[in-house]
């Protein structure tokens, strides 16, 4: 790489670079997060060059919840897109417990093996919940949504990932720090984690509700999801 582009820098590991001063104002220092959800991250080293930074995130609900999704309409859909869409269709968007995300490898254009890896990532995430009070298998298969982001055309180091899912599950927490760590772990070439939260009310209800969201993306961005 250095011979081809001596000016090139390494951009691959999440959180690797210092956050540019002009971007710091977009990173929240606190948040109001939805009840019953928790977030976490852990270092796996999906990219071998990433020796320090968290690259797997988990967002989980204490109770089974409704879920909906939109996916890329690119005809070459990555394995986690296919697996997650099929899972949500099978379950009709009900009974979901978690979203598990890795950065560093997109698990895209990886053939049947990639599909098996994505299924395994979801299944092993489910296993983290089997011993909690809402973790009993309902007989409808996986209840974890799987996402991957990073380079295309490489197989996931699935054993490395699944071996750390217990760690990331153990890191789950409800604080701003937990949410921000998860937002940072899904980054690739992003220069800052993207996380916002707010409260809202609905007509005819006394309740106050919360919504939180994290996103990542910096390049290969012209979404056309459905």
């Amino acid at each position, binding site marked *: *790489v250095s011979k081809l*582009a001596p*000016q*090139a820098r*390494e*951009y*691959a590991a999440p959180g690797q670079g210092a956050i540019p001063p002009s971007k710091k104002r*977009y990173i929240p220092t606190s948040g109001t*997060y*939805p*009840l*019953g959800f928790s977030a976490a991250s852990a270092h796996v080293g999906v990219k071998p060059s990433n020796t320090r930074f968290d690259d797997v995130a988990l*967002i989980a*609900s*204490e109770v089974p*919840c*409704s*879920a*909906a*999704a939109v*996916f*890329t309409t*690119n005809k070459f859909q*990555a394995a*986690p*897109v296919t697996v*997650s869409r099929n899972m949500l269709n099978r379950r009709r*968007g*009900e009974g*979901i417990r978690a*979203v598990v995300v890795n950065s560093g490898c*997109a698990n895209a*254009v990886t053939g049947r093996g990639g599909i098996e890896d994505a299924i395994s990532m979801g299944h092993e995430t489910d296993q983290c919940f089997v011993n909690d009070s809402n973790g009993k298998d309902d007989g409808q298969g996986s209840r974890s949504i799987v*996402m991957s982001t990073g380079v295309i055309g490489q197989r996931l180091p699935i054993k490395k990932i699944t071996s750390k899912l217990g760690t990331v599950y153990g890191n789950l927490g409800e604080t701003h720090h937990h949410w921000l760590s998860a937002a940072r772990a899904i980054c690739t*070439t*992003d220069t800052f984690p*993207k996380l*916002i939260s707010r409260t*809202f009310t*609905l*007509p*005819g*209800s006394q*309740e*106050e*509700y*919360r*919504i939180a*969201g994290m*996103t*990542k*993306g*910096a*390049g*290969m*961005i*012209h*979404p*056309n*999801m459905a």
Partner: protein
Amino acid sequence: TLLGILCTDAPVGAAPLQQSLTDAITKSFNSISIDGDTSTNDTVVILANGAAGGKPITSTSSDEFRAFQETLTAFAIDLAKLVVRDGEGATKFVTIKVTNAKTYEDAKRVANSIARSPLVKTALYGKDANWGRILCATGYAEGVESVVPEETSVSFVPADGSEELKLLVRGEPEQVDESRAAEILAEEDLEIVVRLSEKFDEEAVVWTCDFSHEYVTINGDYRT
């Protein structure tokens, strides 16, 4: 790749949740462009666990659903804008507003055409008020019926909300105040307004960024 994970403790059933997300995406994440490339992995999910209690939203015809949909759309727009703020190598945050189109789809196609134009994006990086490139990208937008060259106007709206700088009015170029154009383009935020025809009133907004040397550096390095 774009990934998004949204969570709420509102009690929303799966079917209305899907409807509200699908609607919200059109005017948020499907209305941004960094480099014009659609990824193999783009995914946005939303989870609703109902932990805050209250009456469940089970249909798409209630006031509660409409209120939730509005909240979700505004929230998704704010999240989507953060992605544009972090566009690879971006130095500018650009709002492209296309008005006076026959349909929303027409306006969106024109806005996307401008947002994807490398020459528009490099002009923005170079702080050049190059309305010719904007007009060119407007003119080749595919499948658009409502572009009428002699009725088309292009303006820059400063980030501070002061009076817009008119570059082209009804197909005729304006005498541009270059020093004011330079002031407007020196700011990080910029809004480009393109008015297509006085006969129509639909509009669309797309958010994008400029193209810089840094974009090439990053993507010349990033390996599959």
